[in-house]
């Protein structure tokens, strides 16, 4: 049986009963959405439309509408791709890896983190598609039997590995997420009264009955999928990093990339989870489920991964000098002191210096600071990819070809657009899907709920009537 220190904070605050959890999670789905939701979804919808417009213009006119040039063949496109893939890391890490490690605090955040993962990977997948010169033949990257003679894909190419890695990761994450949703959909199905809604949720819930056998299978499938997803968490970004690591471009050709990219991805993924959840918990009144303790745990992950990233940066610098390779050395000198010094130092500040402040307990338990820092980390990680991609190739071997990269409005439009689409999807998720894994949460209520830890557990409002002298101190907020 689960044991924990008595001083450990409970994971579910408030005076929650099983029913309370169901009520709290289903309330936003069953009630009318607040005005703010409509406002936000309109804004993000418009931004999304703008982005789609930019993408259509790009596809109609040519890649030349971006600011790329003969020297810098990838810039914002692949930067955005890697950034979104990185963000898409946290969800599966939280649900799969933490599941295997029996980290119960994950249950409050895994649902929305996984949703974020799905949407982020979708956004990421946009870029390798639209960055192709001829997207209409993009299916050639798949090893499909064809009538082009002996033409086959090139298994040496890391871009091909990418195709496999991302598509596998996306499918497994999607299935994992959806399996988790099934019992929760069933709960909603059982509660809603409107026939159409009921119909929709009953289809979504795949006829879940909630009998013991179903739960048993649910647990097994979750475990199996967690086992499958865990290596994927590490493989997907390792392989993305090989897009660079297997090249001969100074600054890309680095064996440190796989672990460095994975930790960077976890780093940025957690930052994005924090950004989203800190808003969501407030907006959807989930403060009792996602509270300071959760934030603190995530911040610890951020310190750890941020430090790994920092060490990686410094290792790269050291190796560039130690290798004695002129081009390698120059690539890093150029990063730090060349025309893109501002990008490099933004990256350094955002990713290495500011997360270290989380060693201070007060700061890592401070929600406002955490929110600001999550934005900083997200910015820093975007810059990291930009620095790696652009500053490496804008000045590589032959000085005559050295150039600068200047984004066009289409570059910017597409990027902002994907953010718009992402938030649009996430807002839909928050409105129509159970944002917490409510049935899973119930499984830890006894061991992690506040009242239960105190030896009570009679549900919300019970102590208003029954305990006139011994109130429970609220530990939250």
């Amino acid at each position, binding site marked *: 049986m689960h044991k924990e220190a008595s001083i450990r904070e409970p994971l579910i605050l408030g005076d929650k009963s099983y029913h309370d959890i169901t009520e709290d999670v289903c309330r936003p789905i069953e009630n009318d959405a607040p005005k703010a939701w409509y406002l936000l979804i309109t804004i993000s919808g418009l931004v999304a439309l703008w982005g789609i417009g930019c993408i259509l213009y790009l596809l109609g*006119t*040519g*890649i*030349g509408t971006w*600011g*790329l*040039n*003969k*020297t810098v*063949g*990838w810039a914002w496109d692949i930067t955005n791709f890697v950034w979104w893939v990185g963000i898409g890391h946290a969800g599966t890490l939280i649900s799969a890896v933490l599941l295997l490690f029996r980290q119960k605090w994950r249950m409050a955040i895994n649902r929305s983190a996984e949703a974020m993962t799905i949407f982020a990977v979708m956004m990421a997948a946009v870029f*390798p598609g639209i*960055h*192709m*010169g*001829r997207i209409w*033949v*993009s299916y*050639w*990257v798949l090893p499909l039997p064809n009538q*082009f003679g002996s*033409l*086959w*894909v*090139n298994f*040496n*190419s*890391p*871009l*091909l590995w990418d*195709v496999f890695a991302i598509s596998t990761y996306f499918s497994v994450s999607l299935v994992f997420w959806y399996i988790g949703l099934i019992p929760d959909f069933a709960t909603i199905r059982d509660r809603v009264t409107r026939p159409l809604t009921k119909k929709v949720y009953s289809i979504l819930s795949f006829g879940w009955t909630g009998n013991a056998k179903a739960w048993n299978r649910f647990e097994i499938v979750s475990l199996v999928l967690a086992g499958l997803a865990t290596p994927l968490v590490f493989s997907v970004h390792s392989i993305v990093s090989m*897009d660079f690591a*297997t*090249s*001969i*471009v100074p600054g890309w050709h680095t064996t440190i990339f796989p672990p460095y990219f994975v930790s960077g991805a976890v780093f940025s993924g957690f930052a994005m989870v924090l950004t989203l959840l800190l808003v969501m918990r407030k907006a959807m009144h989930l403060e009792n489920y996602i509270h300071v303790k959760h934030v603190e745990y995530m911040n610890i992950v951020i310190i750890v991964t941020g430090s790994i990233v920092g060490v990686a940066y410094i290792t790269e610098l050291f190796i560039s000098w130690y290798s004695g390779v*002129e081009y390698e050395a*120059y690539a890093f*000198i*150029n990063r730090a*002191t060349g025309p893109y010094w501002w990008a490099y130092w933004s990256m350094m500040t955002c990713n290495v210096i500011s997360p270290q402040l989380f060693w201070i307990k007060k700061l890592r338990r401070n929600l406002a600071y955490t929110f600001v820092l999550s934005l900083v980390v997200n910015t820093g990680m975007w810059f990291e990819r930009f620095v790696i991609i652009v500053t490496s*190739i804008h*000045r*590589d*071997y*032959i*000085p*005559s*070809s*050295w*150039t*600068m990269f*200047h984004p066009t409005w289409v570059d910017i439009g597409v990027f902002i657009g994907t953010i718009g689409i992402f938030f649009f999807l996430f807002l839909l998720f928050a409105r129509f899907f159970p944002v917490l894994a409510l049935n899973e949460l119930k499984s830890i209520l006894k061991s992690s709920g506040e009242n239960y830890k105190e030896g009570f557990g009679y549900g919300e409002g019970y102590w208003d009537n029954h305990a006139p002298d011994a109130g429970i101190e609220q530990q939250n907020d």
Partner: protein
Amino acid sequence: MATNKKYWKGFDELKESPEFVERKNNEFPAEVPVEEFIGSEEVSGFNTDRRDFLKFLGFSVAAASLAACEKPVIKSIPYVNKPEEITPGIANWYASTFYDGNDYGSVLVKTREGRPILLKGNGSYGVNRGAATPRMIGSVLSLYNEARLKGPHRHSESGCMPISWPDADSEIGAKLTSIAGRGGKIRLVSRTVISPSTKLAINTFVTKYGGKEAFAMGPAVADPIEEVLGTPVSEGGQETAPDIKHITLDELSYNGLRNANKENFGDGFIPNYDFSKAKVIVSIACDFLSGWLMSTEYIGQYGETRKPESGWMSKHWQFESIMSQTGSNADQRVRIKPSEEGIVAAGILHAIGGGGKAAEGALGTYCELVAEDLKSAKGDSLVVSGSNDVNIQMVVNAINNHLGSYGKTIDRSTLLEMGRNNDEEIKTLEEELSSGSVDAVFFYDTNPVYSMQNGEQWEAAIKGCELSVSFAQYEDETASACSYICPDNHYLESWNDYNPKSGHYSLAQPVIRPLYDTRQAQESLLVWGGEATRSSGKDSTVFYDFLKSTWEKYGFPMQTDYPTFSEFWNWAVHNGSMDVKEMPAAEQQAFGGNLNAAVSGATSIESHPVELIIYQKAGIGTGKDSANPWLQEMPDPLSKVSWDNYVTMSPSDVLAMFPGSLTEEGLASNSEEIKDYSAWNSLYIGQESPAHVVTVAVGDTTVKLPVFPMPGQASGTIGIAMGYGRGAHGGGEPIIGRAAYYTEKYGGYEKDTAGNLVAIGQNAFPLMGWQNGTTSLSGMAATIEPLTETYPLACSQTHHTVMGRESVVRETSLGTYLSSDSDTYNPPFKLSVIKDGKHQEVPVGEADLWDSHSVEHVGHRWGMSVDLSSCVGCGSCLVSCVSENNVPVVGKDEVRRSREMHWLRIDRYFSSVGDADRNAWEKDPTTNSFDYHQMEISQASPSVVYMPMMCQHCNHAPCETVCPVAATTHSNEGLNQMTYNRCIGTRYCANNCPYKVRRFNWFNYQGYKKFNENNPAQQEMGRMVLNPDVVVRSRGVMEKCSFCVQKIQEGKLVAKKAGRPVQDGDVTTACAESCPVNAITFGDWNDDSSAIRKSSESDRAYQSLEEIGVKPNVWYKVKVRNIEEDVVVNSNDDASGHETEHNTH
């Protein structure tokens, strides 16, 4: 059954109105007088039997069908009747000659299915020995310029209207007769005519209206005019003699040189220079490799002296103000102001002990050094000056005379016919024109409204003439002022002959039927001269017959090789040129002239704080082809700017001017090296870093141009290229060609407030000066005013130094090359490996993680070598590559975005101020340090290295492994191949290419509106220049140099058909065959005896970036400079520093 129903066709018939009845009766009114005809006695007397009838019938049918065959409206593939000489898919090559008044050369024209698509120098015949300038190679595209006039035009009140040739002939003829009849002045203005037949045609014309013109073709004929044409016909014995003259007007004047020779030798000739014999070459502001006299010949000769394998190299000194093509190749380059050219010349003369006047200060030192070199190679030296000042040229003559160069490197018995314009004569014409005394004026191949200093006056004066005729192919500046335009053929549609220098004759033949209803100017002159009548339009043979008869009369007797004229003629046309072996020795006058006056004249040229030089750019030249998109897009060899002209200034001068106020002497003399990175960076011109704009004023004329900070430019001087600002008079019409005007970012033309198209750049000719009796293109006193606005320049190379990367570019001195083994100047790259348990250093080629492609010693392995030592950076290879491989033109905005598509580029590196520090650091990293930022700063007077860079066809190609769809693969002949239709456009290959030679199709260049104005493939006619052997790439795919795989295939097929293995020389690439200095060698590396194999095994051969192990199939050869030290000469203490001390910061 009978019926009385009446059928009628209309109410008229029903009513039977009288009118109707009348018309009905007259339905076939014309009575054919058959009876009369048959009844006549004459006819009935004929005895036409059945056989005759059949003969007539047969003849009529045949005639009718032949007549029907006369008019095939559209000639398209497949041929119905295939011309005998054309096999679809097989190119035909024709020998011809290019001459535009500036460049001359024998060329070979490649035609496919009757379309000329490529030009190259004729390697077998002609003085240029295969050399061709970018302008010559690009001229094939101008043939298809849609702005060419489609027929004769007349200017009237209602504008420029097309007329027919007969109308033009009769109107012009009538006016001429009336003008000549009343003794009016007739002037025929042309550029230097070096064509004997054209001269004769001009004669015919001039003679008809009462004049007489000198003519010479060969020495045999005393007075050909008398012989050919008889005595001049006087017009009806009128009292007033007509005044008709032929005047020569070129953009570039060689008057100073001709006058100096007149003074020194009694005859205003231009001698033949032979640079191949010169061990020491001293050039005083003479750009003899690009645009000076017979530069197409000199460039090859110069190249011969730059190959160190022979144990010697020419020592090339250059004194100049701007960084010229020639100067950039010099071993020692000294920056002077134009006003110091005379001082240098006199100083050298003094230093070699031939009189003159010693130069002071640093210049004096340089003169001494030059003199030492000159004296050590006495006779085997050549001093040339690009000045048009007679005094300077006389001093230069004196130097050459003192050193005994005449008879060795300068041949006075072979004289150049080029550059014959006479500035005084033109001045007179100008006065006559502006006084309104000229009644009729003809302009043949000259454009004074554009190229004269006071073009506007010319325009007004021409408009005032009773008759003004231009033979221009376009409605150009002069033509649009003329009352008639009788457009000449393009030279590829024309017959012509040339006599560029004594003893050498060449022919030009048409390679395509005239595209439009144009007529060769010579034919017009012959028609107006009464010598011929034009009969058959485009297929007229008037001038051909005339030319042939000239050659029969004069050319044929000059040789003894061919017994019959037809044999001679066929071979002359086939070869394109002929040399007359035995030239009678002309009388050679001894050196004379007033040297002292010349010296004092040359040394007392007034200097100015800011002196202007108008120079020629390699692509644009004098502006004749400034609507040619290939040439506009060709980056300038030095500035790497395309699609614009600009003011070149020394970087420190630019810094002094921006920011900060400019005083009177503000620009005067700051020769300080810029060492401050941030200051240097403020001069950076890139995609979003536009150039500063200034106004330059010479006298009352001002131009507004952006500034390009050009390392190597003398302080206190500014340079502006000629040839820009053309065609601006056309209003809203692209009158000289679509590519001559600025375009908008998303396509369409940029227009000024009045809705007129804006011509690219500014015309520099109005800034010309007049000095010492000749026009002057340098040394004009200019004032320069900084403006606050900026202007984007399109630079294809924005970083100017090689950052000390010795594995990219290697150079050494001649001394080191000769005295040491290759490990010293060309060390192989070694890798540390563990072998047999021991630490070992092995050559990088031996350490390999991969299985090699089995290309070595199996079948062919195509390879290339590029000799950096002889490459002069002229750009011919680049334009040739564009022409051969259908490389898309992308226009200024795209070049600015670093998206030019050139498969072959010429990297140009300046030596940097940090080079010395870096060299010291290489030797001992502990005690020295260097700063990468300083490495980015070019020296004030840098040495230059050119490096043609194309796909290196790596045997371990990084691009091949990363392509997800295997669109780029390795062939079993060592080629790195690009399969366009498999490419999905991920651009990973381009990122992973260490040489950055891959080019991506960012747009649909053949269709997208942005490229409508500049991409020839978007135009009906321009498309004709495309090489059908090379696919036009679609949007979204990667492309790159293919080693001209279509030519490889062709060469292999030729060998196969001949039943023999491929031999060295069967296969070559466009760049290799266009290189005037033979710096590029191409061939089969697996062939042990091939030139490329030998070249790759030379001591100087290295592979760029060898250490990254990509194993290229291209070798470069170490650049060798004829200098003392291995360290590049750092002439910070340059001459212009001696004038005054000036502090900029």
